[in-house]
């Protein structure tokens, strides 16, 4: 059920400010693609343009093409709501719905899709999603408790369970570990490695070791100066990017000389 994404000539503006310019990137199915780069280089902006969440921000404008298995998600006959049902997202700060139980959090997306679903089906989906998110064992006895009562790492895994419950084609992750402690981070990283078997994953991370550990492909973004647009500098297999980058800027960044 994983699909590929092809980005061509992507430019993103916030009002008159050009945030990202000229991005071309191919995301392979069943792989983890990491977007890295210094703050403000537009990697989160690019990520958010992949499921049209960028449109939630006022004045944001996207030019260029984002093809999901050949179909332009910015096409005229495309409903952003449907795009987001196919391309799920996990955010930087864990954001389970505070007014819902763990159970209801997981099936929140299912409830949006079909108004009425059978209790037994829902039970299956909840168990399957929570198992896939490595959370089942920790919460199976308290599914009726509020999701906000979990620890930060558990909340983030709950959010991942919620995102994969609807069986999306692609899962986008916007710095999913940056608000978590090292042990929770490890749990999420292991989870990403498992999810890779079934899903296309694009992850933004500030943590270069993380990118090196979990990703197959790494894309390095940089900006030429404050207030200027971010560019995609270099993209390649993660191993090569970290051992033998082609661009000087990439080498400087991953070796910690700036950024």
């Amino acid at each position, binding site marked *: 059920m994983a699909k590929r994404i092809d980005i061509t000539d992507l430019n993103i503006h916030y009002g008159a400010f050009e945030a990202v310019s000229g991005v071309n990137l191919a995301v392979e199915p069943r792989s983890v693609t990491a977007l890295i780069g210094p703050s403000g280089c537009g990697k989160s902006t690019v990520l958010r343009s992949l*499921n049209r969440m960028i449109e939630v921000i006022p004045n944001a404008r996207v030019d260029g093409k984002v093809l999901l298995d050949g179909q332009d998600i910015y096409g005229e006959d495309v409903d952003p709501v449907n795009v*987001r049902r196919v391309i799920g997202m996990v955010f930087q700060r864990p*954001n389970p*719905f505070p*007014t819902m139980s763990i159970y209801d959090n997981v099936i929140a*997306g299912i409830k*949006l899709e079909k108004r009425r679903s059978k209790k037994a089906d829902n039970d299956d989906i909840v168990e399957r999603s929570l198992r896939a998110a490595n959370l089942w064992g920790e919460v199976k006895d308290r599914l009726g408790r509020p999701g906000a*009562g979990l620890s930060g790492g558990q909340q983030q895994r709950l959010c991942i369970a919620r995102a994969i419950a609807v069986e999306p084609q692609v899962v986008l992750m916007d710095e999913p570990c940056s608000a978590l402690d090292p042990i929770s981070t490890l749990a999420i990283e292991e989870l990403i490695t498992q999810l890779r078997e079934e899903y296309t994953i694009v992850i933004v991370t500030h943590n270069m070791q993380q990118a090196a550990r979990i990703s197959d492909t790494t894309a390095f973004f940089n900006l030429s100066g404050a207030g200027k647009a971010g560019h995609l500098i270099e993209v390649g297999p993660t191993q090569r990017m970290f051992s033998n980058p082609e661009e000087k800027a990439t080498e400087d960044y991953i070796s910690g000389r700036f950024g």
Partner: protein
Amino acid sequence: MAQQTLSQPDEVSIKGASVRRGDKVFFNLARSAGIFMLLLTGSIGLFLLWKAIPSLQSNTGNFFTTQTWFPDSTPPLFGIAALAFGTLMTSVIAMVIAVPVAIGIALFIAFYANRRIASSLGFVVDLLAAVPSIIFGLWGLSVLMPNMQGFVEWLSTYFGWIPIFANPEEVYTKSILIAGVVLAIMILPTISAVTREVFLQVPRGHMEASLALGATRWEMIRMVVFPFGKPGMISASMLGLGRALGETIAVALILSAVFEINWQITEPGGNTFAANIALKWNEAGTNGLSALIASGLVLFIITLLVNMVARWIISRRKDYSGAN
């Protein structure tokens, strides 16, 4: 650098009182403010009860069921039945109209309107919330009532088969319905202003989470905004209800004071606690004043109960409040 090191004492003193004086003063100040609040509310209740007792003792009718108001005749005969009915009925009508509209306005300002329209509309709503009730009363009497007659007539002609809209006398002014509509317009900005503030507090992360799951804007509102804002929406409604229950002048201007329970809300008549007190106070004798205070005590208790129920509703699902 060297000098600085020399001038420093060998031991750093960590001695001192564990509670600072400023903290103590502020603590006591805050605590006495809280206690003062309780004392004030309690003493108002006691005052009302104290002043009400003489008339309650001399009353020859049942205070709760009698539908007349002759506290100064001998023997005194009065009861609050019609007042309670009129007060609750006008308030219920006001709430039924105002709450959905106010929430709609708040939703529009918070989530649908662009920034420029939202801020000017929000400003107008805040301004309306500050308009004194006498203005609403005058406007209701001189503008709304004449203009509403046609609608009320239409209502009782075509929906007269619903008992509360029947109007055999075919007089369509000074009714509980019109008073309720004026109250609705009066409390609408209050409810709207408070719910809008609550809606603006909804964490962005939760809204984005629902949108990213493929929720439409309306689905996002039902999924995240309403559950998060529920306590605030209830509080705002109670604030409005409190104002509607206690509203005096606007209602006194519009209703033609009649002392009987009339379920036909499009007909002239009806009365409320506050309006009755305002209208009767100047001409009341000793027992009359005491009787009016007794009715005020009932209004006081009703308002207290309404607030307690609201608090209870809000606290029932604290785990899920979204505050954590």
